[in-house]
């Protein structure tokens, strides 16, 4: 019978799948975008307010911790509008502006390499591995600025225990999403995509290292690496891989993106170190974001102030060579 016959062509064949899946979001966002741009242009709406209203979602049921309880937080607006995330563009405001249509759900992470059972885990299931905690950490960018961010996440060590790596696992590699359709910056050959980072096993197991899924009590904004990113507070910010899709356990040190881009300027370890300058600029001091034009620079601390917790990981190593 002809009348009830289904079309052979499914919408997903005609339209790229992600666009098709995101069509409502797209239409809504595009519509909002036009309205909001017009409104913002006339000063009726603070810019970006609409996007924030669309995306901001509270996280419930996380534990507060003592980490960074005495720190002055960098304002939310600064944390979410001043980002390095080249997949969405190379200027600081690009990630916030160009990630509005990015939908980080559904999401899964592949656990690969030197583990007992390689598998793929949904984000929802991954979040059940350990209770979520708030960690207030300093974040020092290799460019010479810093922030204090209240992350919400789970200790990477918990996930590693759950993943059951084999005795051969000496390093952990983090591979992030490469999707030029949803990430306009990734169409440019600025870096060798996908953005890849790595840690030595003992660095990954350190209690300070977390996988973050939120900040300021809310679900991680797209521009900050939604839905799941790495945070390693004693290392320069670029170690914090965003939008992670693969966690791979390895016997050998992984090639990481910035090391490939500039081996003279960026090293695998990338520990914050005021005594070893970037070849082109100083690392002795930093500008804390959120101050006024008259706020002075502050002195950068060894291991970004986390020496007590991590200095032992590098005892006997020449940090000038292993920068």
């Amino acid at each position, binding site marked *: 019978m002809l009348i009830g016959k289904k079309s052979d062509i499914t919408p997903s064949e005609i339209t790229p799948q992600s666009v098709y899946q995101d069509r409502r979001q797209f239409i809504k966002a595009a519509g909002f975008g036009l309205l909001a741009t017009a409104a913002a242009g006339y000063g009726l709406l603070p810019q970006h307010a609409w996007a924030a209203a669309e995306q901001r979602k509270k996280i419930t049921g996380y534990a507060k911790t003592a980490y960074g309880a005495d720190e002055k937080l960098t304002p939310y607006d600064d944390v979410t509008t001043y980002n390095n995330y080249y997949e969405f563009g190379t200027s600081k405001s690009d990630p916030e502006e160009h990630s509005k249509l990015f939908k980080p759900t559904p999401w899964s992470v592949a656990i690969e390499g030197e583990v007992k059972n390689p598998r793929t885990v949904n984000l929802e299931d991954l979040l059940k591995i350990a209770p979520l905690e708030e960690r207030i950490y300093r974040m020092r960018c290799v460019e010479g600025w810093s922030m204090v961010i209240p992350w919400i996440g789970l200790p990477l060590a918990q996930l590693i225990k759950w993943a059951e790596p084999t005795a051969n696992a000496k390093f952990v590699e983090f591979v992030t999403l490469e999707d030029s359709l949803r990430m306009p910056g990734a169409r440019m050959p600025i870096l060798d995509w996908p953005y890849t980072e790595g840690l030595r096993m003992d660095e990954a197991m350190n209690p300070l290292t977390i996988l973050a899924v939120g900040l300021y009590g809310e679900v991680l904004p797209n521009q900050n690496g939604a839905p799941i990113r790495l945070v390693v507070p004693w290392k320069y910010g670029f170690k914090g891989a965003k939008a992670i899709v693969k966690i791979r356990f390895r016997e050998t040190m992984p090639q990481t993106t910035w090391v490939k881009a*500039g081996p003279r300027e960026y090293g695998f370890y990338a520990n914050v170190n005021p005594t070893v300058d970037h070849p*082109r600029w100083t690392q002795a001091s930093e*500008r804390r*974001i959120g101050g006024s*034009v008259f706020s*002075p620079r502050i002195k950068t601390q060894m291991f970004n102030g986390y020496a007590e917790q991590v200095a032992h990981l590098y005892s006997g190593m020449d940090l000038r060579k292993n920068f």
Partner: protein
Amino acid sequence: MLPPNRQQLGLIKAGLFLLALIPLARLLWLGMHDDLGANPIEFIERSTGTWALVMLLVTLSFTPLRLLTGTAWPVQLRRMAGLFMFFYACLHITTYVWLDHWFDWPEIGKDIIKHPYVLVGFVAFVLSVPLALTSSNAMIKRLRQRWKTLHRLVYLVAIFAVLHFWWLVKKDITEPMLYALVLAALLAIRLVFSLRKRKGQMV
């Protein structure tokens, strides 16, 4: 097209003067409204540096304009453009010394010596000082032929200024490349015409 008369030229100069103040007015406006972004000092440094570079390239474009179109009168605007370059360069370096480093001279000295991008920027600024100081009619008269030789320094200033921008960029060199291409074109036009002239003289 007829060159403008004195009155018209005065108006054009006044217009250019106001136009060249817009970047400063914008910074003041944004500053007063707390709208300079998450890193206001970097914003001011970038903005004043960019506009110094733009003014420099404008300054260098009057001669190619004359060579290519035969229109000579705009060269009367060149001094003003050059002085605005110096003005924005002064704001740039003031921001660096004051807001960025709070007159921490030892630190500034180290920064200049150790980091090539700071060094070339600093040299570009130092070289532009005598150009600004000798920009008056009286100085032109007094120095005569030497004035021309002295003011050729502007080519070095331009090359160092572009290098300064190029070397500070972390990875994406699109923007400094744009300035480098414009500068290369402006210098190439001069070179082609001067080679041609020399050939003509030899025949």
